[in-house]
């Protein structure tokens, strides 16, 4: 076999592996959506869950998922963006900057169950929040934080240096330049990043089992952040592992399809707001 034949074979092999990756994803999507979509109904989406009999819905869980996501972003976006701005604008080569960078790296590699245990210790136990939506959201924001820092730093670094210099040359303070020049110019990239973070946080479950708990409030929708708040992905696990309802499999498949649809929507939406903003910022060009 000469080298040219080997080369041809290798090319064929690489095409096959590339197509295999896409086929694998397609098989996953078809399987989950195919199994789950038949179970999606108005009652399933907004109905209350059942403990013992069949036919329960996931309404409160769906609501809690978004509520916890919203609260966690409320906590983590200001801190994450702040730290990102620090790294992009203020950071000089110093021990402190190195420490912050290593912290971000380590934080992003902490297994989510460890966040869960930490959240249980700090928020549920020490601060007395028990299993609650607030405790879950606070713990979840730890997971978001490192990604937000990285996204913000990268977004601000993509803004041309001349913007920053021009603003300072006009006599602005650094804060004015950050607020009125850097952040607006970096906003499209920033929003893309935050949407991706949100998609990831929505599917997270290990963190929330022992911080937000495994049951839902009797009222729906319940905005009280001190109530227990099981989310959709936790429910999907719980109903398979521990629940007594006879239609656990159907509920799990329906929830999986629902989760996947939400994640798909987030992934598809990623481009849209940034594109609209881009259009407005560049005057429609």
């Amino acid at each position, binding site marked *: 076999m000469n*080298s040219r034949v*080997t*080369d041809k074979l*290798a090319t064929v*092999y*690489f095409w096959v592996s*590339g197509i*295999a*990756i*896409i086929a*694998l994803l397609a098989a*996953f999507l078809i399987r*989950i959506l195919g199994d789950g979509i038949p179970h999606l109904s108005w009652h399933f989406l907004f109905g209350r869950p059942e403990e013992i009999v069949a036919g329960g819905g996931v309404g409160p869980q769906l609501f809690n998922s978004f509520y916890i996501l919203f609260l966690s972003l409320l906590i983590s976006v200001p801190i994450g*963006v*702040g*730290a990102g*701005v*620090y790294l992009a*604008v*203020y950071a000089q080569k110093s021990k*402190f900057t190195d420490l*912050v960078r*290593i*912290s*971000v*790296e*380590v*934080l992003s*590699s*902490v*297994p*989510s*169950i*460890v*966040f869960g*245990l*930490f959240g249980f*210790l700090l928020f549920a136990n020490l601060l007395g929040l028990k299993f609650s939506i607030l405790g879950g959201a606070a713990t979840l924001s730890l997971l978001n*934080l490192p990604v937000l820092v990285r996204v913000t730093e990268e977004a601000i670094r993509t803004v041309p240096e001349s913007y920053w210099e021009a603003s300072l040359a006009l006599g602005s*303070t*650094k*804060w*004015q330049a*950050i607020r009125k020049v850097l952040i607006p110019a970096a906003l499209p990239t920033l929003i893309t990043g935050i949407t*991706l973070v949100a998609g*990831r946080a*929505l*599917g997270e*479950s*290990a963190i929330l*089992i*022992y911080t937000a708990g495994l049951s839902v409030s009797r009222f729906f929708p319940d905005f009280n952040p001190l109530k227990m708040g099981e989310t959709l*992905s936790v429910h*999907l*696990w719980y109903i*398979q592992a521990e629940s007594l309802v006879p239609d656990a499999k159907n509920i*799990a498949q329906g929830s999986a399809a629902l989760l996947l649809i939400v*994640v*798909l929507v987030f*992934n598809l939406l990623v481009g849209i707001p940034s594109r609209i903003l881009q259009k407005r910022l560049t005057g429609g060009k």
Partner: protein
Amino acid sequence: MNSVADKLVNAKEKTRPLVTSWTRAQQRHDSLMRWVFVGSAALVSAIIFSIIVFVGMQGVKTFADVSPLEFFFSTDWTPTSNSFGALPFLYSTLLLTLLSVVLAVPLALSGALFMAKIAPKWMREILRPATDLFVGIPSVVYGLIGMTFIVPLLGRMTGGIGYGILPAAIILAVMIMPTILSISEDALRALPGRLEEASLALGATRWQTMWRVLLPAARPGILTGIILGMGRAIGETMAVFMVIGNSPQMPKSLLDSTTVLTTAIVKDMGNTNYGTTWNNALYLMALVLLVISLALILFIRIVAKRSELK
């Protein structure tokens, strides 16, 4: 003698910068916000330190009742009779991680080479969102696929129940493949073009160039990708929980029900009271996980430094 120029020349004392209360307020805001930014950066560091301290303190309490020797080297985990041997969990975690990396690396590297060097633009535009979507799928959904599809399939093929390390490794391989792929692809793309050109100019085929020149040159980046993938595999909880069987024993085969560190924590956390030895042992496992992921990050930094020096 009253021209504008004269006024400017004679008005030395009047050209001090105009400092109004508004300017002063802006400057105050500026220095305040500087501290806000420094503060949020410091907070990020404080968080990781407090995680290590909190989980560490709680975990180390285990050693008041259980000797380190027993915890790390005994295979007997029956907390109800005060036996806390975590060796099965450590062993299964290691085995599961290695197996999933071994399964994931070939496809991930092929995909990375394909995307970096062979695929036409339209193919790349399909593959990139596809790999992103792999990362976006929640881990419980992966677990459900493993439970409803892979486990029954393996069960039918071998005649057993199908739970164990093998289905978990297959699921994990799919989950970490995109991580390894995208980092390796970046590493391949970052190589200077002259390497490839020189190899092709010497008469090497594209395959020879990729295999003998590009892959070895991109080794540090690929290694980083693999280690990050390993980190994800070690820390993954829910998907593994749903397919590994969860018996606290040394696995006799790849299709024998067992438990890894993460799933041991999830399984027992709900049954134990805060402050008991059993509960503390779970924190000790979390500490082990934390130390492993710290070690992996340090290793990546060393690899990166080394390749910079060259």
